[in-house]
């Protein structure tokens, strides 16, 4: 059982009042709130151990280095990776994707193919477009069905010997669809294509094991995992990371520098140029502890219950038009209300204290395909409740009545 009172008490931000209403935070797919365990860790870091890592001989640097590397171990265990060397700290999901989409250019030739899907976040589209432009590789796009699922037949059709890398989201930030990663990976293996998974929306909502999924790369952001902004993770299989050239040059990532030639540091330092976000990485470790203490399987069950309750409520509104109706969904609900502009609804909900996202949620091509100028998105986290959902639907009807 989840100790709900304890969870809630860790999030003082939930006491914020918006326009005299209690805040209802349904924008967890954009960013999750940070518990005091995480914010205290950031404060303590600066008050008690601020220093640079991996280079000092002194006390502060030693304990910070220790904590930083401890976080790496924690991430490794959290996602079921095999080695510390496979965990690279980045600025976030976007940064992780750019790293691979840049470094991987070395292995791409004109005519090679990169495969993504129609439901990708702009962060998993644009870096690959840049990569394709640079290398002469072609970007191929797998269709999404009207339920909002990856069209697996189309995926199979597009895969061929020229496919070098396939980059797909684990869970769609707009549709909520949980994609069948193992199945996709098996198909890709037939053609020796590498598999990159954007785990931004999955990592805080279900147990992820990169070894079981057998993916080559997996990435996520700390700020969608109840951690701080500005930190992310790139997991890559050691043998592949070994072969990839560095992404950025600078301190920390070198072994020996002369003006003629520089040799690079071993993994993972090779990909961690410059002073990293030390307090953020340590805080990410705290966020993982926080999540693990609650237990991800219980979180998955709890959020599935919330989504279920949400779906039941939504079917009562005859003017509710869902976007993304897969049966295999995470707790993300995008929708429109018949005739209403998403913006009008968003403004009215905001005034009632409800935080939702409106617009295209960084998935313009997906919205365009279904002829939508935008949607409203409610996305849930561990501190949300059924009664908040009830309040949400009351507000939704009130807003709709105000407009029509």
């Amino acid at each position, binding site marked *: 059982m989840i100790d709900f009172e304890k969870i809630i008490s860790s999030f003082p931000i939930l006491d914020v009042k918006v*326009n005299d209403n209690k805040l209802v935070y349904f924008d967890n797919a954009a960013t999750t709130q940070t518990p005091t365990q995480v914010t205290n860790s950031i404060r303590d870091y600066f008050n008690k151990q601020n220093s640079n890592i991996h280079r000092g001989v002194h006390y502060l640097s030693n304990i910070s280095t220790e904590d930083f590397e401890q976080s790496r171990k924690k991430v490794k265990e959290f996602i079921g990776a095999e080695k510390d060397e496979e965990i690279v700290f980045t600025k976030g999901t976007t940064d992780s994707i750019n790293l691979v989409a840049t470094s991987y250019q070395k292995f791409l030739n004109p005519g090679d193919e990169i495969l993504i899907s129609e439901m990708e976040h702009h962060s998993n589209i644009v870096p690959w477009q840049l990569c394709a432009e640079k290398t002469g590789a072609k970007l191929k796009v797998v269709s999404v069905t009207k339920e909002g699922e990856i069209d697996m037949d189309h995926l199979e059709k597009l895969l061929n010997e020229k496919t070098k890398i396939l980059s797909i989201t684990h869970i769609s930030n707009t549709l909520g669809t949980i994609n069948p990663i193992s199945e996709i990976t098996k198909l890709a293996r037939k053609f020796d294509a590498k598999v990159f998974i954007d785990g931004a929306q999955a990592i805080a909502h279900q147990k992820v094991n990169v070894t079981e999924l057998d993916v080559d790369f997996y990435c996520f952001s700390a700020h969608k995992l109840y951690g701080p902004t500005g930190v992310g993770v790139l997991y890559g299989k050691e043998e592949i990371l070994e072969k990839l050239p560095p992404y950025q040059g600078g301190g920390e990532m070198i072994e020996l520098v002369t003006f003629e030639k520089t040799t690079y540091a071993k993994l993972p330092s090779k990909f961690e140029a410059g002073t990293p976000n030390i307090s953020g990485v340590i805080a990410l470790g705290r966020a993982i502890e926080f999540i693990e203490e609650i237990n991800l399987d219980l979180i998955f069950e709890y959020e599935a219950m919330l989504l279920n309750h949400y779906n039941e409520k939504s079917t009562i509104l005859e003017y509710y038009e869902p976007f993304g109706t897969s049966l295999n969904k995470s707790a993300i609900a995008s929708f429109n209300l018949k005739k209403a*502009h998403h*913006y*009008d609804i*968003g*403004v*009215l909900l*905001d*005034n009632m204290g409800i935080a939702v996202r*409106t*617009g295209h949620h960084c998935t313009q091509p997906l919205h365009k395909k279904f002829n939508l*100028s*935008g949607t409203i998105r409610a996305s849930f986290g561990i501190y949300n409740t059924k009664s908040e959902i009830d309040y949400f639907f009351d507000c939704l009807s009130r807003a709709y009545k*105000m*407009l029509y």
Partner: protein
Amino acid sequence: MTSVEKTQNEIVEELSLFTDWIEKYEYLIELGKDEIDFDKRFMKDEFLINGCQSKVWLYAKQNNSKVTFHAYSDAIMTKGIIALLIKVFSNQSPDDIINSKLDFIDKIGLKSHLSATRANGLMSMIKQIKIYAIGFKEKNG
């Protein structure tokens, strides 16, 4: 006081009669539902205002020495705000439009209800209105 400023004050006064945000928004929604003088041929990208979450198209015409503005949005609330702007700026002289202080947005207490991106959209609209006025002034010599 310019006549633009006078109209602004009238609007501020009218809206100050409302005691809570719901009434204010209902008023905006009513305004947003009113028929407007907008020629749909202008619903083209070149008349689109950047920076709004909802789409806004805006064009201007000159009638004798006055400028009239015509705008449309796909969102009702935005249309309501546009209606207010048009009330303020339409049928005014270019000089009045260019020289007027614009504090009514703050005074009617809508800004706090608009997020930064939305406030930006509103600012882009006002900027475009002023650009039209400057254009007409230059044309008139």
